[in-house]
């Protein structure tokens, strides 16, 4: 059981790197989607006897993160008809290096945390920290608004991984609420991107820097 979970989490970490290194927008969105599906699997795999609630949650999050949200983003991308390249502030190699640094730091840090026994040896906490930091990295270093949404998704994924340790403790309603929150955020972002594009004929967030009194 632990090994299977570790395997899935390693897949999540690898997808982080893939996200950081790709230069195509649609690839980034698809990687984030696959990461979401993997997380649903991780949820399923992390318990010996998954109850009905757990299965429902796993299926719902996989469907939402793996299917619905990437579909919304891809459709927004097509409507806006921008250039399909990711434009970063720092280069792709530098991003990868920074991502690796972040993963290393999270591994080191996780060792010094006072975790419960069942969570100590597993990759859950380091993976979650690494994913969160990767999400921040994407948010900070990418220009286009769509890539920022992808970064936000990765951030949420990282938090979800941390939540794997707490599934029994969190009420069902909270979990569903978090998923709903995510969905609504992406939906709203889709609408906003349309507006940004109409206003500036581009999705670069550098246009949004003028502060008003």
């Amino acid at each position, binding site marked *: 059981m632990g090994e299977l979970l570790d395997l899935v989490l390693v897949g999540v970490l690898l997808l982080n790197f893939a996200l950081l290194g790709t230069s195509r927008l649609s690839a980034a969105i698809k990687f984030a989607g696959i990461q979401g599906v993997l997380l649903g699997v991780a949820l399923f795999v992390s318990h010996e006897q998954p109850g009905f609630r757990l299965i429902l949650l796993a299926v719902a999050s996989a469907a939402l993160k793996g299917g619905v949200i990437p579909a919304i983003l891809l459709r927004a991308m097509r409507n806006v008809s921008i250039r399909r390249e990711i434009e970063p*502030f720092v280069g792709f190699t530098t991003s990868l290096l920074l991502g690796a640094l972040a993963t290393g*730091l999270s591994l*080191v*840090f996780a060792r*010094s945390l006072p975790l419960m026994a069942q969570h100590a040896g597993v990759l859950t906490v380091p993976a979650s*920290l690494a994913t*969160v*930091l990767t999400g*921040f*990295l994407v*948010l*900070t*270093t990418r*220009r286009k608004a769509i890539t*920022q949404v992808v970064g936000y998704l990765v951030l949420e994924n990282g938090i979800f991984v941390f939540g794997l340790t707490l599934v029994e403790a969190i009420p069902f309603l909270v979990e569903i609420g978090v998923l709903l929150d995510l969905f609504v955020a992406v939906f709203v972002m889709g609408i906003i991107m349309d507006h940004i594009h109409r206003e500036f004929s581009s999705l670069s*967030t*550098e246009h*949004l*820097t*003028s*502060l008003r009194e």
Partner: protein
Amino acid sequence: MNTGLAALGALLIGASGLVAACAGNAAPALADRVGAGVLGAGAALAALAALLALAGGSDTLAGGVLALDALSAVFLLPVAVLGAACACYSLAYFPAAAHPREAPRLRAAFGVATAGLIVVLLARHSFVFLAAWEVMAIGGFFAVTAEERQREVREAGFLYLVSTRASALCLLALFALLFAATGGPALSPLAPGRVSPALQSAAFALALVGFGLKAGLMPLHVWLPPAHAAAPTHVSALLSGVLIKSGIYGIVRVVSLLPDAPAWWGESLLVLGVISAILGVALALAQHDLKRLLAYHSIENIGIIALGLGLALLARDAGRLDVALLALGGALLHVVNHALFKGLLFLGAGAVIQQTGTRALDALGGVAKRMPATALCFAVGAVAIVGLPPLNGFVSEWLIYSGLLRTIAAGGGAVWVLAALAAPGLALTGGLALACFAKVVGVVFLGEAREPAAQATREAPAAMLGPMCALALACAAIGLGAFALGAPLGAAAQIALGAPGARPDAPFAALSLLALALVVLAGALGLALRWRLRRSPRPSGPTWDCGYAAPSARMQYSASSFAATLVRAFAFALLPRARPPQLAAVFPAASSFHSHVPDAVLDGLVLPASQRLADLLGRLRVLQRGSVHAYLLYVWIALVALLAVSGASR
């Protein structure tokens, strides 16, 4: 049952705005009336609850979270009365038909603010108190900035918001202290000796600043005049009449919770009260805007109430319970009285402003000829606020004077010195208030209009006159019916002082008789004069003009000239500024004279200090580039730093 009634009333009041907001543009007049009706019903319930509680029956609701005792009832009664009066008034003053965008929002905000205030008065639980306080402040903000298109209104609203935030912070700290002292969120009196004096003093200081900001004690009064001038008149009436009294209520309630009161509490309240009273009325005298003048008078009256409170605290400390009861009874009665006559004055001023289109005193005049009923009601309010017999202002000021006089007659030490200085100070404010309101009544209502454009057109509509007459009658009723005030005031005061079963022993009946004698005597003389004059023909002519054949209305004394002597006498505190006419050549061109009295605390202290602070913080502007990426980078850096720090500390 009382508390339940009051809570239900609050609920109805709070919901009254929803109707107007929901109906929107469909049937604005009907929505207005229904909203006002619902608010009136809620106010009636609240008033009934307050009267029942004053008659002797306090109870609690929801396990002690809400409670209505005599002290809360004294503050609740004017809220209900004034809320209903203002709601009726606003039907004609700010109808939805004339202000389709602002009126529903204003009605909703008005209802929310009033409901929040009622819950503040009922709350006995820290969180409920704070939540209701915030609701009241936010509702008040939206009510004040109803006409937000104007820049002056926006600035006044901003100042109001900043001061409510500051006051809420102080209150948060206060309630945190109380929580730490009592171990729970319930607001119940502390056992003496259990809590350290330092903590009690800190709590009182926080209460003084936090509640004093709301009440408008000097020097924390800077938000009051702009907010009153900018808000629609019935909102100013509510603000002045009851919302700022919530500050006084807070101070009284906190004092009733803390058992051992050192002398400096009463002394600071008394001194601040005297300063607020004298400077408030002096500043009022110097104003040439009608609503700002009334706002400064509110500061003066808050000063008088604080004076009574301070004296009561000092007297209780010295063991003179009779003096404390008199002073506190006077202060509490003044709370009710001020709500009534200040509300009346604001409503009258609103009617005048609506009909003449201007607030400037130096342009108005002769309004009484076209608006006689409004003039009569305003005159009643003016006589009441100066504290002249036979109306209600005299009774409350007389009670406070009685406390001061008894202290002077048989006291000693620091209290005696303070009382000996406070009594003439109170007399000085009375004299200044007389000058100020004689000026207002004379300049606005009597004589002729100083600018032809500021002529009143016609009498105020019935929806505005009705509340004014009701309030005027209430003032007269309290003045003539002073004999019935002993028991309710005693019931309220003893809760604050912690002395059960006591009544202020003042000859209330004598006051009632004196008022009655005055009314009867003046009435008889008036009738005799009329009878005498009826027998002879009465030719009329122009006013004596000393042989100058063509006097004009501009030659009348203006408001600024009326006040000039006294402003000059108080120039050390008022700091008036004048721009003299520029007379250059041999045949100079037309020039003008302009004089203005700024608010010394606002223009001299608060604004420059905040400008300095803004400049200093402007240096940190460089961090705020507007780039989302930069902000996210800051978050990232913060996260990594936190992780590193917590990892290193293991």
